[in-house]
């Protein structure tokens, strides 16, 4: 039975992704959990897995093309009883219809397997006044593809065949208007860049987002010299991640009534024990303090469920387990927060192994779909950067974020006497819609308690 593999949603803020590499070809046998495609999103490059066994029929989206969340990426013949399932883990909606405000060059080849035509196909046909009844579909089950429509339009002489790389809707063609992709136009407007001064490298010389990187905003449109564009894909990916993160954080601050708590934890005992344990171990088996912090957070999150979950449509939905988000800074700028699933069931040593693997793959761009689906609570650890405390911004739709600063030596009262001890500041940013300060205080107190008593290997 035929099943669809669609662009997975990797978080509330993801709108589209670009296929970077297919790991399978038509005819390949795949098993549940196999990585079939590498997708670049604004957040990161990720490896997407299939969730049933089957055989690959057709790859619908080519390498280099962008597709919206929910767009068809490939068709498979699924084996066994799971055949009727969609192959992505999270059921996702069909691509949103194109609207004038958000014309998406992203729905390329998105072809839902419905009797009705995809929004893109309908939109293209409407633009060209094409009657779809007269067009032969080459897609599975006779469905119309973008190519079919473009071919039909080209046959009538309406479309430039060289423009095939991008849907005609993506690049405005009004006289006197600089050609640019909608995204590039919006971004240029936001940055104060005059498109007239940018050299386009897209289809027909259209300005695409990559062309905006490094361009100086015009202060005086008349006097500013033409600025040569620079092609820096890496810088552009980092720029896109910055924009995506900025949007998400702005949404968080707009929608979430944050409250903040802080506590100072004396960590002399546990850190000494960690050091002793590490002295007995080869380098590869050593545990970083970060793993202890994650372990303590996961334990506390499991004990105070109101900190662990999502705020969805006005209600708090507790997580089924602690999927612990870890904010990881990327070289060259940017941040990803993939998750360690079922973290509350892991020992400190297990979390260390998983953290090391996760950080390595986050920084080389090989995260998995399952790791980027929304965590239930996130930790940010700025200890290595030398700051004492961090009051973070909650990642929607989560309801709490835990922050750790660096370990510093401070005067500390012990049994009525003053001593110098290593201390650490743990903070909680929490969503007041989901919890109160009372819950937050309980959470931080439990976290501090667990920090004192880590199960070390």
């Amino acid at each position, binding site marked *: 039975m035929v099943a669809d593999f669609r662009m997975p949603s990797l978080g509330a803020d993801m709108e589209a992704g670009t296929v970077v590499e297919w790991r399978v070809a038509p005819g390949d046998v795949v098993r549940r959990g196999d990585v079939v495609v590498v997708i670049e999103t604004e957040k990161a490059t990720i490896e997407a897995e299939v969730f049933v066994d089957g055989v690959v029929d057709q790859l619908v989206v080519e390498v280099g093309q962008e597709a919206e969340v929910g767009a068809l990426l490939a068709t498979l013949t699924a084996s066994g009883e799971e055949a009727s399932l969609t192959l992505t883990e999270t059921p996702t909606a069909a691509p949103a219809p194109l609207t004038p405000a958000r014309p998406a060059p992203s729905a390329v080849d998105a072809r839902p397997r419905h009797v009705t035509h995809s929004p893109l196909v309908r939109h293209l046909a409407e633009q060209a006044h094409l009657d779809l009844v007269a067009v032969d579909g080459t897609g599975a089950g006779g469905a119309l593809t973008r190519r079919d429509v473009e071919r039909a339009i080209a046959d009538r002489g309406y479309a430039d065949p060289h423009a095939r790389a991008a849907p005609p809707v993506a690049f405005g063609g009004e006289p006197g208007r600089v050609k640019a992709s909608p995204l590039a136009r919006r971004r240029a407007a936001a940055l104060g860049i005059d498109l007239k001064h940018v050299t386009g490298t897209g289809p027909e010389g259209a300005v695409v987002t990559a062309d905006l990187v490094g361009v100086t905003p015009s202060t005086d449109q008349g006097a500013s010299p033409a600025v040569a564009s620079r092609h820096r894909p890496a810088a552009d990916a980092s720029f896109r991640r910055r924009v995506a993160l900025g949007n998400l954080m702005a949404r968080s601050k707009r929608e979430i009534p944050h409250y903040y708590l802080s506590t100072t934890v004396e960590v002399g005992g546990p850190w000494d024990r960690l050091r002793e344990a590490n002295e007995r171990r080869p*380098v590869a088996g050593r545990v970083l303090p970060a793993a202890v912090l994650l372990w303590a957070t996961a334990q506390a999150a499991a004990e105070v469920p109101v900190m662990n979950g999502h705020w969805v449509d006005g209600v708090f939905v507790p997580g089924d387990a602690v999927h612990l988000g870890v904010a990881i800074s990327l070289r060259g700028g940017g941040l990803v927060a993939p998750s360690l699933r079922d973290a509350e069931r892991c020992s400190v040593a297990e979390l260390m192994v998983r953290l090391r693997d996760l950080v390595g793959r986050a920084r080389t761009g090989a995260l998995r779909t399952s790791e980027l689906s929304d965590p239930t609570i996130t930790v940010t650890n700025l200890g290595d950067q030398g700051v004492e405390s961090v009051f973070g911004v909650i990642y929607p739709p989560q309801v709490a974020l835990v922050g750790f600063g660096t370990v510093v030596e401070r005067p500390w009262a012990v049994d009525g006497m003053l001593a110098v001890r290593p201390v650490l500041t743990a903070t909680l940013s929490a969503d007041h819609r989901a919890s109160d300060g009372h819950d937050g205080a309980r959470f931080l107190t439990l976290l501090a308690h667990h920090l004192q008593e880590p199960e070390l290997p």
Partner: protein
Amino acid sequence: MNQADARTVVLEVLAGIAPEIDGTDLDPDAELGVELDLDSMDFLNLVDGVSARVGRDIPEHDYPHLTTLAAFGAYLASPPAV
């Protein structure tokens, strides 16, 4: 192993961790943590990689000797403490 060889090993391992660092242009006295922006996970990977390459355990209590490329090289060039 002399200091030059030791530095080469460190730089080669470093290239896999922080590809944007230009080894030929690196100030040997630059602080690995602050100036090269290596966090504790990067540093663990660096020590792990170097340790495997030179076949020598590098205990955690020696980390304070490994703050710069020059110091790391000098450490590897000296015989291990018994």
